[in-house]
């Protein structure tokens, strides 16, 4: 069967069971947009290419399937670099297809030409510049394989216009042949036995669960490990939902804005069981002072993560689910629950900390002051059980992670590693497309919202009814917090204004329901109304107290032992 390169590309995406493309056409990708009309694949027309990338990420994070974005060459390709980098940092599988100028024009500074594969090389797991239409099915199959296996990540396929127009003989490859790509998924049996032995000897262990748990679909295996051993769990920003917050052994989020117990449990533990986590600087604080007494078991599918930051006593390369299942088996072989030492003193200690130093804020009972945490708690308590929460980056993101109760995997979407402001709205659109049956709430800051709000036009047009709660404190709040604490309250370029833009009017102009909430007593009614709307996106502008800061906090570069609590809670455990 003779096809054009463009037809072969779309057919290859169909073979990969792609159900939706997020994209925006332009000159170099024009040939590929023609066969989309005849394809069952849904196309969602974004308003900015960055939006397409983040939508693909949101889609991937809630479905576990790769998100696909398609844009043209030059500025479109550079606009999608941010999502690529974001997906790279958070190991999110997305496939980005970019148009390129004709191969004969490459290197001539042609209109809308840029070196897309060169620019994206550092922020993709791999990328391809296709030079022969006959290669298209093979490359697409390789691209999806690389994006979704091993440590997942973004890939990019660059397709010159003449290659898209060229004829090819259709085929679909049976196998992927990449001699340099063979991810290790099975953990080393001796290391697994050793891990089980160390667990059985530990008196103050803690599991440091990372995003790898979700990537590997290891939540159930983790649950089994915890139920068998009684070991408490911290869930990193990327792993919220990987272990239910309601479980009595869930300690919540560690790190720079983690809660006291989660942070301190890692500092005081004698065994740190890192599962799919990467000792990020936002978790460890000052590395030399991090978990000083702990032996470390580190499980990761990416060998380069082992011994990158901390030297593990037991390094295990492998898929988190497979490895945890093997560890569970080894623990059973070594006597199971009965063989575990008595850890009641440790658990009691954790309970004491939890009682002494809970998350804390004070919502005044009278007056119009609305605390952002209060708005979030009301949102949480009124949201349907399986709600997906999406956040941008900054204070609102930390409060979201702290105050939400995540019970199920894949219900939390945020930009962890790169910290991309503006992530929330497009990622929420992608999440809603991936899980149309679930309520999707985006919690956003006013600064973030202004970066990508135009994708609400996409959402309104395509009838993707996401809900957006702007915690509007009229500041770049996290920057303001640092300036207040570390720059002697010298506020440099952080004020935004609560009224400009008028978020309610802006939402309405974009085809959304717009609301404004200025006092605590208006909160519930607005949330109820928003939850009742299912035919268009909703935006609530919560006017929140700009003085509120995110606590606890470990100052950047400081030791986790120097955690700062909310000022009303005194000096903490020191």
């Amino acid at each position, binding site marked *: 069967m003779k096809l054009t390169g463009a037809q072969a590309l779309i057919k290859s995406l169909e073979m990969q069971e792609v159900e939706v493309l997020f994209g925006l056409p332009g000159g170099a990708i024009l040939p590929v947009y023609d066969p989309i009309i005849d394809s069952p694949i849904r196309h969602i027309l974004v308003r900015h290419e960055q939006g397409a990338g983040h939508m693909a990420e949101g889609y991937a994070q809630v479905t576990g399937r790769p998100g696909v974005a398609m844009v043209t060459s030059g500025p479109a390709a550079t606009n999608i670099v941010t999502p690529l980098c974001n997906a790279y940092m958070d190991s999110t599988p997305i496939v980005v297809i970019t148009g390129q100028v004709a191969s004969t024009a490459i290197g001539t500074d042609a209109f809308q030409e840029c070196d897309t*594969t*060169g620019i994206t*090389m*550092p922020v993709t*797991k*791999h990328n391809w*510049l296709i*030079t022969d239409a006959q290669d298209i099915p093979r490359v697409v199959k390789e691209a999806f394989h*690389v994006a979704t296996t091993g440590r997942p990540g973004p890939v990019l396929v660059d397709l010159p216009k003449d290659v898209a127009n060229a004829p090819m003989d259709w085929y679909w490859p049976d196998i992927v042949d*990449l*001699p*340099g*790509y063979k991810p290790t998924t099975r953990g080393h049996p001796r290391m697994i036995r050793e891990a089980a032995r160390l667990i059985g000897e530990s008196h103050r262990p803690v599991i440091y669960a990372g995003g790898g748990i979700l990537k590997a679909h290891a939540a159930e295996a983790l649950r089994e490990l915890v139920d068998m051993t009684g070991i408490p769990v911290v869930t990193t920003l990327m792993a919220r939902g990987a272990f239910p917050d309601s479980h009595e052994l869930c300690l919540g989020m560690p790190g720079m804005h983690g809660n006291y117990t989660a942070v301190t449990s890692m500092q005081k533990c004698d065994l740190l069981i890192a599962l799919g986590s990467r000792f990020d600087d936002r978790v460890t604080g000052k590395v030399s002072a991090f978990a000083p007494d702990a032996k470390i078991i580190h499980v990761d599918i*990416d*060998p*380069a993560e082992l*011994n*990158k930051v901390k030297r593990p006593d037991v390094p295990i390369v492998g898929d988190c689910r497979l490895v945890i299942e093997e560890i569970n088996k080894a623990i059973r072989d070594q006597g199971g629950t009965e063989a575990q030492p008595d850890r009641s003193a440790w658990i009691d200690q954790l309970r004491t900390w939890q009682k002494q130093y809970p998350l804390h804020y004070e919502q005044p009972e009278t007056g119009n002051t609305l605390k952002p945490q209060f708005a979030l708690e009301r949102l949480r308590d009124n949201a349907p059980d399986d709600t997906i929460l999406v956040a941008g980056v900054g204070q609102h993101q930390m409060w979201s992670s702290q105050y939400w109760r995540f019970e199920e995997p894949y219900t939390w979407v945020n930009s962890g590693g790169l910290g991309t402001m503006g992530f929330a709205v497009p990622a929420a659109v992608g999440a809603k497309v991936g899980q149309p049956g679930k309520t999707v709430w985006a919690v956003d800051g006013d600064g973030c919202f202004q970066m990508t709000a135009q994708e609400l036009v996409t959402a309104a047009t395509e009838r993707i009814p996401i809900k957006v709660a702007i915690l509007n404190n009229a500041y770049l709040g996290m920057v303001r917090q640092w300036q207040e604490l570390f720059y002697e309250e010298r506020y440099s370029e952080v004020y935004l204004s609560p009224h400009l833009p008028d978020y309610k009017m802006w939402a309405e102009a974009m085809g959304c329901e717009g609301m404004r909430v200025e006092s605590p007593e208006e909160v519930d009614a607005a949330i109820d109304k928003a939850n009742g709307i299912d035919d268009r996106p909703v935006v609530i502008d919560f006017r929140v107290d700009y003085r509120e800061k995110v606590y606890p906090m470990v100052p950047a570069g400081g030791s986790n032992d120097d955690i700062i609590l909310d000022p009303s809670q005194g000096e903490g455990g020191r």
Partner: protein
Amino acid sequence: MPAPARHHTLSVLVENKAGVLMRVAGLFARRGFNIYSLAVAPTDDERFSRITIVLDVESAPLEQVTKQLFKLIPVVKISELDPSSAVERELMLATIKAEPAARGQVIELVNVFEGTIVDVGHDEITVMLAGRPDKLDDFEDLMRTYEIVELQRTGRVALPKLERQAPRLRSVKGA
């Protein structure tokens, strides 16, 4: 250029595809690893090329370098070649000032180092020298007396040393 006191040689087998060198070099740049020298050429199997990288080990732990390198999809195999267990060679071309009065001395030194004169001008000669990198260093040093006009070294290529043991009988195919 004196050889670094502490270096490691990585022999990296890569798929012979466009842009692979850029992937490898880019990785070194963005992870802050310093390359001392780099040589690349196709192998006897045309699907693969071999990149020989001499690495300044002060700049990064070797383990991290090799692990990150191995994550590149076109990288098929990485061998670490410890200088003591590898055969390393390098090629140098050097144009040396050699006016008639000095020419005899220069040629004599070239002969001592088993170099070859590949080009002769009125008062300059171009010499080719292949050998162990430290031998090239010595030669370069000696030539400074006569003024080096231009000098180009290839960066080293290396293969593991063969184990010294009694020859084994090997089947000879197609003989």
